[in-house]
């Protein structure tokens, strides 16, 4: 399984980062600093870049990857 990313669909809301941090903290915290995925939006031209770092465990123990579930814009999915 892997998680695909589509920055063209991303609106920059960071809900994926929040969801990821919730998983990474053992369902204890919301904190973008604890997220394995990263959304960066260029303030001047809106260009969005998405990434996932090596700390991502594909949401081991969750029913479904939380970042994918949190994204309502179709900017990421599980494959």
């Amino acid at each position, binding site marked *: 399984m892997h998680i695909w990313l589509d920055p063209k669909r991303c*609106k920059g809301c960071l809900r994926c980062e929040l969801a990821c*941090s919730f998983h990474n903290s053992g369902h*204890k*915290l919301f904190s973008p*600093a604890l997220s394995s995925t990263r959304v*960066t939006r260029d*303030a001047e031209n809106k260009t969005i870049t998405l990434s996932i770092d090596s700390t991502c465990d594909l949401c081991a123990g969750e029913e479904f990857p939380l970042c994918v579930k949190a994204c*309502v814009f179709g900017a990421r999915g599980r494959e």
Partner: protein
Amino acid sequence: MNSYGGRILRVDLSREEISFQETKAYADRWIGGRAINTWICLDEMAPEVEWNSPESLLCFGVGVLAGTLAPGACRVSIECKNVFNGGIGSSNVGGFWGTELKYAGFDHIIVKGKAKQPVFLFVSEKEVKILDASHLKGKTTWETEAAIRESFGDERIRVTSIGPAGENLVKSACIICDRASAAGGSGCGAVMGSKNLKAIAVRGRAGISVADPERFMKAVDEEMKKVNQWEFIKEIREKGYYGAMGGRLESKGWEEGYRPVKNGQDEYWGRDKIAKIAENVMQNYRTATVACFSCPTACRPWTKVPEGNYSVEGEGWWNNSSNAFCTKIDNTDIESAIYAHHLTNQLGLDMDNASQAISWAYECYEKGFLTKEDTGGLDLSWGNGESMIKLFRKLALREGIGDLLADGALQAARRLGKGEDFVIHVKGQDSLDGVRINKGWGFGIVVSPVSGRHLRGSLGGFWLTRGKKVNSYEDVPRDLFYSQKKKVVQDILGTCSYVYGQTLEDWIELFSSATGRHLTKEQFLEIGLKAHNLEKAFNSLHAGFDRSDDYPCDRYYNEPVKSGPYQGETLDHEIWDNMLDELYELHGWDKTTSLQTRKGLEKLGLKDVADKLETFGKLAP
């Protein structure tokens, strides 16, 4: 404290002192956000304190649910003294800055004093610093944000700042968060400028906990289901709010008085002109939509004029924009209007207030009260978008005629000795909104303690649809009384009107599971009522407002709508009086004066407020 940052940051810029308080000291009584800010303003500011004196306070308060996955919870309330009239100043803004503040461990920042030279604050979970901002003096909000971010080498630093307008104490100055989110109204940007505070930069790496994570996530899921099932959600995500809702050519909103024309001479623009700025045209300038923090709606268009004199791009274009930069001055040139939208954000001008002063100047020009000699050569004929842009710059810099307009249209008219009868204002504050057609919308705007603004419980728009005819007076006071309370609750929690489908019960479930604190619907609404009463008390004490201040300005009270489907629509004076009587009765206020009563306040547990009002002779006998 679950769902809170946990602390309040106090900054005294005169003494260069930084101190901290536990949020809990206020949260038990006032929960958070707007209500805590308002209490601090009422409790700590003496009535004689001027908005621009060092003793005045500037209060930032982040919503209780902000920083969690609660849909769209990101908003910040900003309270201070209203620069137009000395009453309560209050604004509310989205973006990313507020949640970053919570990740730095703070729910509020209360600023007092005045720095000797321009400074900015840097706030993180590890340190708070007052830093020199001499190099940022005169810079736009966009330049300021970029410079601060670059100096720290951290793209995640979130910045709220003022532009030249705030530095020059222009009363229509706002505070801009994250380049494009404007905390407008009340002149809070001028208050910030009076403190020599150019910006607040925030970086937070801590986390927000919730009391019952599984229950909270279930509540989030339930809320998200509603959001995703909304019939317009797909379109709004694609086109933004303007493109999907209010800006559609066929939208009824064009007819219902939300966009006054030519300084409020009329409330209908005509289909030919509307077609030049509506979605059918705007779609050519929208390249994407973007979201605020944690928002599943993404109502914000990214607008771009690719080339020419008005080349610009950035976040935003609202219904207000089509009023402020188009209908108000009869401007059908969409490119100049989009440019003006982004320019006002850069200059740190609130489009609602600033455009109103400018449209008043255009009418003065029409009537010959202002000439090219007065305007520095600007042709202020209706429809001149190029002059509008130049005038916004002059306003922000207090240059020439800009200085005349910088204290608001009412003061300008008094200085000029002419034109006061067509100043569009609420309690002395320039006001964008039309009030003659939608009676629930208009009544809410005029009686609002924050002196106008349509997001203070006004009835209308898709989030407060009443199922009654738009120009019906039926049940307006009763419905407004409810929505005024509900809006306070929303501002306490930091949720957004544009996340559709949220009921009070939904908010309560999110709040309870996040904080572990259990309040009933009635208890929540009572907190809303109490906070509304704090604003009312502040106005009685600081501005001396009474019943006479709850009437519309001359033009809107006395002139009918001139054209369109609601041609001839007026405000009935007798009904207006009756609505005031009914609203005051619901609040427990004295009908003759509108002042609060001891009985009414004590019923709400506000004996301390009643005592204070009595001390200053502002309690109804």
